[in-house]
């Protein structure tokens, strides 16, 4: 019977597939001790798998097996919050973003780390970072990534159009971009405003640099009435639509695209560049602008406003539901330890987490341009801390996109945003 053979064949095929699949997996051979599951976004500068290698070294040293899950930031955010909402239990070490501190504290999701942390670590790590991840006097996260952004630019392109200095204010940036465009550059700059939380980061940074506020000190929304916030949005709308100094692809671009466009020499300014951009730009296998990038001494700001750069530090935390807290802490301690921090900085150019590494001669000779950061880093600001940050980020980008597309005026968009934020705040306090 032919049909029988067919079915038998299908089953056989399936079996063969499943067997070959089993043979292909590569499991770490040490499975003696504990096993932890770690969920983090990949480090934005880690193109060589440094943290993955370090994780494997950790397993080799301690015998603790690590299931390391790396995803894009927004995917991680979805996963972490879904899991914690469900009562947790899936992960032992999780990403803990600076925007989540209020929400996670409110829900009492995390294990306080004060009893774990050594005195050396507490006094050695950057104090500002530890403070960011503390709430009500308790420490909930150990920073693993000092993600601070800096204003960088393409000095060669500026030179070619007769500019010897980078712009300091948005007005100057606009003027220079128009001249560069007239000289044949496609766009002055590109930014990332996708309908994701990374888009919300960029919009927030713009507002800060105009001296604007989205929320007041008590966490009440004020974007609808703040004239400086309005000026910031008006500038973004104008740059995308009228002066066209910003690449319209900013509306969907992720950070990586912004970097790719910049290192292809299609834009002159990188408004919120992470330190790794400097290295990619000078890597001849990736970049068309080797030796052209420079770090500005002063971050961009509106006339009369203070310069601001965005800081988006990320920490590792242990959910209360973790069944393997000791092993989890061992992993955190290893990954954020001083020695590995220095190695990482040397390998991928990440900004150190430890205070004294900023004066370490090995590092300062390898990265002389870090000296330029110091002018900007003093003006670093973080995202607003809200219990309803995720929902807020979603509607912020919805309204921002409407303003960018001019389907709403900036005034109306901001007023609507404020109204929706107030409604959200009301919902969460009930």
């Amino acid at each position: 019977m032919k049909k029988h053979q067919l079915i038998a064949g299908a089953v056989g095929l399936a079996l063969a597939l499943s067997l070959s699949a089993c043979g292909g997996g590569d499991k770490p051979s040490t499975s003696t001790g504990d096993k932890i599951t770690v969920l983090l976004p990949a480090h934005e500068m880690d193109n060589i798998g440094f943290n993955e290698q370090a994780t494997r070294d950790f397993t080799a040293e301690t015998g603790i097996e690590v299931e390391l899950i790396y995803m894009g930031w927004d995917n991680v955010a979805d996963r972490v919050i879904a899991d914690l909402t469900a009562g947790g239990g899936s992960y032992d070490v999780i990403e803990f973003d600076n925007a989540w501190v209020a929400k996670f504290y409110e829900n009492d999701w995390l294990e306080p780390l004060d009893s774990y942390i050594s005195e050396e670590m507490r006094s050695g790590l950057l104090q500002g970072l530890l403070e960011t991840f503390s709430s009500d006097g308790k420490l909930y996260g150990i920073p693993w990534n000092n993600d601070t952004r800096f204003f960088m630019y393409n000095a060669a392109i500026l030179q070619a159009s007769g500019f010897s200095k980078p712009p300091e204010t948005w007005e100057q940036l606009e003027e220079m971009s128009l001249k560069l465009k007239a000289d044949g550059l496609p766009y002055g700059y590109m930014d990332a405003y996708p309908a994701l939380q990374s888009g919300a980061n960029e919009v927030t940074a713009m507002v800060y640099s105009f001296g604007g506020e989205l929320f007041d000190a008590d966490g009440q929304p004020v974007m609808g009435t703040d004239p400086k916030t309005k000026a910031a949005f008006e500038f973004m709308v104008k740059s995308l639509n009228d002066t066209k100094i910003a690449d319209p692809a900013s509306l969907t671009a992720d950070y990586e695209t912004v970097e790719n466009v910049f290192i292809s020499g299609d834009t002159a300014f990188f408004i919120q560049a992470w330190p790794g951009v400097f290295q990619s730009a000078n890597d001849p296998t990736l970049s068309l602008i080797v030796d052209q990038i420079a770090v500005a001494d002063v971050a961009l700001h509106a006339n009369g406003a203070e310069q601001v750069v965005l800081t988006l530090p990320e920490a590792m935390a242990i959910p209360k539901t973790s069944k393997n807290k000791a092993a989890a802490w061992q992993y955190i301690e290893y990954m954020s330890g001083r020695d590995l921090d220095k190695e990482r900085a040397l390998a991928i150019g990440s900004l150190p987490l430890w205070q004294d590494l900023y004066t370490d001669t090995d590092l300062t000779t390898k990265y002389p341009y870090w000296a330029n950061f110091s002018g900007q880093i003093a003006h670093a600001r973080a995202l607003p801390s809200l219990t309803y940050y995720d929902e807020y980020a979603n509607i912020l980008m919805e309204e921002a996109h409407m303003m960018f597309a001019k389907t709403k005026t900036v005034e109306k968009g901001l007023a609507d945003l404020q109204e929706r934020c107030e409604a959200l705040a009301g919902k969460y306090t009930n």
Partner: protein
Amino acid sequence: MTSPTRTRQIGRLVWYILSVLLAAWIASGLAWQALGPWYLFAALVVAWVVLGWHQTSRKLRKRLRRVVLYGLASLILVWTIAPFAWLVIASVSTKADLIAKPLRWLPAKPTLQNYRDMLFGTAGRTTDAASQFMGAFTNSLIITITVVIIALMVGLLASYAYSRFRFRGHSGLLNLTLFTQMIPAVVLIIPLYIVFRQVGLLDTKAGLIITYLSFVLPYLVWILKGYIDGIPTDLEEAAMIDGCGRLGAFVRVVLPVAATGLAATVIFAFILAWNEFFFAMNFTQTLASKTLPVVLTEFSSKFGPNFVLAATAGVLASLPPVLVALIFQKYIITGLSAGALKG
């Protein structure tokens, strides 16, 4: 009202004018190396073809019809194949090839490195998602095959009963089965999630298997019942007279005849379960249960998706369902149509 001959004359005149215009346009286009507004050009071509149709002889028309037919067929071919071809090309490219401007349609140096990473592990290279590929592949296979086997066994019994017996609640239960197919997954996801987390089924293969049965089983019952309906009862009756029990007759007589339908439904169920994403995305967290579609979305750095790796994994993940479907396409098409015609 003009007479038919008059109309034809005018038509011919317009057609001649169009022909001259078109020739002039093409000539100037070649001369200036620019087509001008392409939509106007396209409209002109369409008008020329339509009018020309009425100018031609019957024999020529037949030939033209073939030309049009082959033209349409090639359009369909390109439309169907081009996107997937691009995925395959991307999977043997490097990132530099993909972001080159102007775009390189074929990679400068095709490489199979991405496939090597995916299949044989990536110690120390690229992202960890690649090293999870084989784990997720295994999960997908286990889950899919288990779902298909359970659904097939349970579904066969039920569809046989619905087809061969009349009992109290027969049509009510049958309609209930059909009705559940109309429930959108989004209604189920919240209660299943809440229940699963209470009984510890979140992030387990068992949880996904149970969930997938919710849409595979009703479908299977419905289709299989259609097949069994089509098999005359006298065959079974003869077997039962020969001393087989009811189920014995079913297994020995009905099953072999229904084999085509079985094959089709099995493949269909396989594809449904293999490709499922919505539940998997929300119910899985780690490699304990993560399926391929979920891992496919994880090929990204912190700042952006890694299209090269995602394309490679995408091609590999497509192989099982696509190959199975292509090999057994005859059964699938009969299966699909049987389902729809009877459903």
